């Protein structure tokens, strides 16, 4: 048994390559469309691949087996390995490949090497099936597509609801297609190892599986390993390539694939058709990729659009020819080496001595029996309990997460409200401050006006009493003296010293920045020059400046010249422009 398992390793490797290569047809588009995540899709596909392999894999397996009864384990190992290597190389060079064609090619290589009589009838069944499977896929795809389109147009289901229905449909389609893949393609994996099936059966209580089915189970597991060895990113990439489809089309393609795989693998249907006198479908492993592409092309015909590029079709054609021929040649070459180098009896005549005819039907249901009822119940119960615990904790975690999110949102809302309030308060404070400043300025202005009025009154009273005194004076000389004194007082008053001081202070206050720049850029300016600069900044004329500074216009010009010199200005630059741009 252990040795037998070692021999079927090459078949299992082929199985894992099959899983990698074909699983993308089963759920690649679904994952790519994000309708299901990789974990869910891969789990459903894996489960149904195993179920299909175990419960409906016998038909295609027997067909493969009947193509060439390789009883010597080493030869079977070599043939499967050659097929696997061809599949691997073609996957690496990105050529579409069918494991069925590779394994059949390998078996033909073996058959030619040992000069065995080829069963042309059976071989033609294989070739015709490979030709007709995509064509039937196309026809089924067209029928499904037209029906779905008709239904969707009439049902007017809302897009969002339709999306949910399509998810359910996809799960069923993946399950059905995976079941078909397992049932149809398990023959490629273990078909040539049937003679090595273990001599035992396992009882699960409500069902039991025999030796061949145990072999199918192992083969199915190898396909599942292949499914999981493909990561999500690769599935996503492949989904974008050949089969980048809309959800509706994906469901149709999957369903077509599932139906055709079922037609070519169901012993029950084959028996039913035969018993009704109708021609039955041969139970032959076919390529799921080719069926899927057939369906896609069919849909393309209906839509009036070409869904697949000519380059892809050419690749498929090339793969269709290369896989069987390559596997056949490689097998022939390897067998030649085994025969010539290791002197292994690989010829047909020599093999007669080692071949024991398989008795497939009798292989099953022999003792020893492995009772799996109790372990099965315990296993299932533990799984159920663990699932329930997991779901409970997951629910709790989700609830807590939702509550935390709500709290976080509320907190954020509160924080933003707080920030808004603070901002409003600050705005109010700034407004209050500016109003206070305005109020103070107004108050000061009124005080100044009041003071000015009282000062003007006292000044005028002083002048009035002075004039009265001059009138009353009889002495002419005294009168002239008094009037001269009054004129002097008036002239002094006319220089407005207090007002001018206020005026300059206010100019400095308003043009604070300008005066600061002036002070830092030209620190050696005199007070008069600073005042002049301030007045020039106000765009006042020379005459106005001369009146304000109590100097002659000529002196203003001289002062301007000096200021320009102190500021080191070029001749072509005007002082006014420079001061205004400072």
């Amino acid at each position, binding site marked *: 048994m252990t040795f037998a398992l070692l021999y079927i390793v090459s078949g299992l490797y082929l199985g894992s390559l099959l899983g990698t290569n074909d699983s993308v047809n089963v759920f690649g588009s679904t994952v790519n469309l994000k309708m299901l995540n990789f974990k869910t899709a891969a789990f459903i596909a894996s489960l149904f691949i195993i179920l299909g392999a175990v419960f409906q894999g016998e038909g295609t397996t027997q067909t493969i087996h009947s193509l060439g009864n390789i009883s010597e384990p080493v030869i079977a190992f070599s043939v499967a390995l050659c097929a696997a290597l061809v599949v691997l190389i073609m996957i690496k060079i990105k050529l579409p490949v069918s494991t069925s064609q590779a394994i059949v090619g390998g078996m033909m290589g073996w058959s030619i090497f040992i000069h065995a009589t080829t069963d042309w009838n059976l071989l033609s069944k294989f070739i015709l099936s490979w030709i007709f499977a995509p064509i039937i896929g196309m026809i089924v795809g067209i029928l499904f597509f037209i029906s*779905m389109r008709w239904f969707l147009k009439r049902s007017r*289901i*809302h897009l969002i*609801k339709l*999306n949910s229905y399509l998810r*359910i449909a996809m799960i069923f389609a993946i399950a059905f297609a995976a079941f078909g893949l397992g049932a149809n393609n398990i023959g490629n994996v273990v078909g040539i190892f049937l003679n090595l099936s273990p001599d035992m059966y396992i009882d699960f209580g409500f069902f039991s599986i025999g030796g061949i089915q145990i072999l199918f189970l192992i083969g199915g597991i190898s396909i599942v390993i292949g499914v999981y060895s493909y990561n999500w990113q690769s599935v996503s990439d492949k989904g974008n390539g050949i089969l980048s489809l*809309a959800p509706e089309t994906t469901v149709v393609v999957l369903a077509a694939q599932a139906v055709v795989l079922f037609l070519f693998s169901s012993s029950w249907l084959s028996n039913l058709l035969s018993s009704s006198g109708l021609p039955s479908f041969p139970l032959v492993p076919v390529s799921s990729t080719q069926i899927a592409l057939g369906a896609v092309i069919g849909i393309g015909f209906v839509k009036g659009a070409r869904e697949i590029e000519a380059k892809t079709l050419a690749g498929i054609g090339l793969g269709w020819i290369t896989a069987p021929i390559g596997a056949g040649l490689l097998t022939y070459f390897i067998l030649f080496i085994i025969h010539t180098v290791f002197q292994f009896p690989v010829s047909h005549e020599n093999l007669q001595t080692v071949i024991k005819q398989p008795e497939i039907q009798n292989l099953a249901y022999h003792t020893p029996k492995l009772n799996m009822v109790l372990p099965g119940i315990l296993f299932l119960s533990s799984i159920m309990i663990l699932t329930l615990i997991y779901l409970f904790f997951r629910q709790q975690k989700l609830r807590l997460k939702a509550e935390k999110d709500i709290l976080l949102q509320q907190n954020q809302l509160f924080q933003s409200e707080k920030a808004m309030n603070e901002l409003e308060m600050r705005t109010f404070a700034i407004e209050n401050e500016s109003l206070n400043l305005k109020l103070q300025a107004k108050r000061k202005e009124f005080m100044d006006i009041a003071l000015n009025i009282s000062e003007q009154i006292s000044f005028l009273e002083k002048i009035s009493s002075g004039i009265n005194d001059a009138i009353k004076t009889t002495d002419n000389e005294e009168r002239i003296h008094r009037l001269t004194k009054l004129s002097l007082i008036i002239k002094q008053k006319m220089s407005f010293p207090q007002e001018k001081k206020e005026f300059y202070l206010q100019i400095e206050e308003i043009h604070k920045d300008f005066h600061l720049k002036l002070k830092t850029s030209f620190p050696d300016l005199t007070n008069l020059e600073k005042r002049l600069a301030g007045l020039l900044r106000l765009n006042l004329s020379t005459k106005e400046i001369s009146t304000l500074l109590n100097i002659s216009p000529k002196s203003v010009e001289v002062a301007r010249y000096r200021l320009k010199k102190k500021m080191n200005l070029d001749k072509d630059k005007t002082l006014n422009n420079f001061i205004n741009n400072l």
Partner: protein
Amino acid sequence: MFNFKHAKKSIDIIEQFLSLIDQGSLIFKDGVKNYLQGNHENFQDNLKTLSNLSSEADIKKREIENILYTQSLMPQLRGDILNLLEELNNIIDLAKTNLFEFDVEVPFIPSELNQDLIKLTELSVLAIDSLIPAARDYFVNPDSVKEKLHRVYLYEKETDKLASSIKRRVFQTIPQLKLSEKFHLRYFTLHIEILSDVAKNAADLLSIMALKRAI
């Protein structure tokens, strides 16, 4: 996993959202008419209603976004759908802003332009009115979207034509207007006309989306 509950909820919200846009366009039309006819109180009412509708549409749009993303609904189409909702939301936002412009800037509109401006508003709003059923159909019957969208394009073209003619009249045949008033009128013609342009943009997006959905 199949989210039927959330699917139902999002369908309801989308329906409500589309109704809000529809109502918004009608209120805008009414608002412009009231302004032109000098019904100040009614105009203020329209302004208030449109403002409320716009805020409500914003909330609905965010709700739809939340549901579509958190419940992983229609992963392959939600980007397009949210873009469409954004475009539709732009329409009601723009209608509200434009009506506010009337309220704030109080443009002087000579009475001889009243009829033309009312006609312009009606055409612009008709473009939006034709867009909403097409958007509704996208969800249930994408094949009929295209035949509904041709009306949007027609009204948009008519709006453009009328807007050009109004602008020409303003600048060439009403000499008593000041240049500033002419500019002001040009801007307000543009404010009304632009609604049909936004409706056309949404129609472009919708027609591509319908093509994507066609099976």
